[in-house]
């Protein structure tokens, strides 16, 4: 107690209104939040890196997974759509920063307009992400999982292009139905049956001499393709069940961890974008009703803007580590 020196400024310092590092309380706290949230995302991305380096010679090649663009069905266009999504998010960052700039000049109409554009950009982005998820969950070719937990895919022996299960699997009439918890052993159930059973795939494979198996193992930037004899042996000895699309347990493109991290990281990011949109909408209406005009400062737009740019910043890293590297 006695060591504290009483000066005239001390009263002012502790009475509030003081701005350490020349940033207002709200902005400083937003920066605190951003740093801690950045560390959360780095934790996720570092965990992704961990799993990837752990399975560095069998990780799915992203170019082969995300090849779809809405309305362009059946065409292989790697990364085009995700590049579009990135551009939309950067663009909405730009309209946000323009809104902040208009706020500095106290131009209410301009702030309103730019906030509106920012919200639209965010909605387009979240919608695109939902579409991306749906496409990924649905899958396109189908594959077989082995007893060891590896994914084997089917390719054309000449062109090396993937072949969909529906193009070669036979249809064997069967009585087999999904086990729901309302029948059979009570309170036990299984997930929906795949469109083809393993037996149907094996029979179809035997009668299509031009199809071979591609394993997960990457050599010289390409996945290993087995010979016809090896393929037949692999499928019959190791085949366990059919996988179509992606979920948290299996994923037809390779390691299940790839799908797990994809859902978790892009989901967490999508949730950030979603909350950003909500915050933006609240601020948007506050601008319209003139809250900040009366307050004499549009700093709230700046604070929510910081958050919005941060979401963009995280996406730049997610884009690199999920789709490019």
């Amino acid at each position, binding site marked *: 107690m006695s060591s504290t020196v009483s000066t005239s400024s001390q009263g002012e310092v502790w009475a509030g209104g003081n701005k350490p590092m020349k940033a207002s309380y709200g902005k400083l706290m937003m920066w605190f939040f951003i740093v801690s949230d*950045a560390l959360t995302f780095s934790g996720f991305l570092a965990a992704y890196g961990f799993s990837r380096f752990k399975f560095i010679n069998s990780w799915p090649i992203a170019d082969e997974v995300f090849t779809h663009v809405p309305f362009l069905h059946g065409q292989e266009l790697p990364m085009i759509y995700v590049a579009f999504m990135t551009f939309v998010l950067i663009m909405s960052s730009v309209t946000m920063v323009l809104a902040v700039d208009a706020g500095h000049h106290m131009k209410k109409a301009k702030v309103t307009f730019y906030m509106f554009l920012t919200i639209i950009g965010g909605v387009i982005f979240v919608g695109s992400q939902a579409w991306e998820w749906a496409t990924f969950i649905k899958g396109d070719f189908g594959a077989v999982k082995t007893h060891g937990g590896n994914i084997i895919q089917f390719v054309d022996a000449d062109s090396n292009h993937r072949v969909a299960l529906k193009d070669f699997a036979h249809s064997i009439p069967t009585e087999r139905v999904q086990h729901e918890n309302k029948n059979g052993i009570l309170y036990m159930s299984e997930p929906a049956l795949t469109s083809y059973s393993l037996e149907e795939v094996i029979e179809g494979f035997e009668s299509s001499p031009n199809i071979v198996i591609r394993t997960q193992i990457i050599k010289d930037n390409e996945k290993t393709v087995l010979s016809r004899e090896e393929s037949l042996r692999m499928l019959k000895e190791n085949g366990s069940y059919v996988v179509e699309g992606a979920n948290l347990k299996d994923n037809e493109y390779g390691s299940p961890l790839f799908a797990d991290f994809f859902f978790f990281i892009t989901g967490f990011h999508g949730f950030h974008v979603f909350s950003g949109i909500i915050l933006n909408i609240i601020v948007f209406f506050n601008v319209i009703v003139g809250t900040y005009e009366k307050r004499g400062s549009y700093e709230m737009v700046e604070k929510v803007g910081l958050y919005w740019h941060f979401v963009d910043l995280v996406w730049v890293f997610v884009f690199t580590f999920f789709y490019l590297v």
Partner: protein
Amino acid sequence: MADAHNLEIFRGLIKFKSNTQKIWGVLILLSIVTTVEVVLGIIKPEFMMESFLSMKILNWVFIILTIVKAYYITWDFMHMRDETPSLRRVVVWTAIFLICYLLWILIQEAGYIFNTYDQGYIKRDF
């Protein structure tokens, strides 16, 4: 605040007349970098597929370009350029230090686990 913007990027190589103009300039820069990334990702030039420090050169290029983008988003969109040096350091150095530490320790460990699988101590090729 309104007049306090630092309007130079590239250490003064490009000077913008107004803050709005700077924002569009940065957008153009970010778009160019993203386009380069996507084009490289589609073409995958042969000479960039060689390994350098246990990663493909192409991947190093992607990571460096990403950090370039992150820099301009933070510095110009989040107005870090206009904040005091102390705030800048508090935010950036803390994050960079902790992220580097985390990455080092996890990636190092992942390499070890990969080798354990690779040398056949654990069998999973069935």
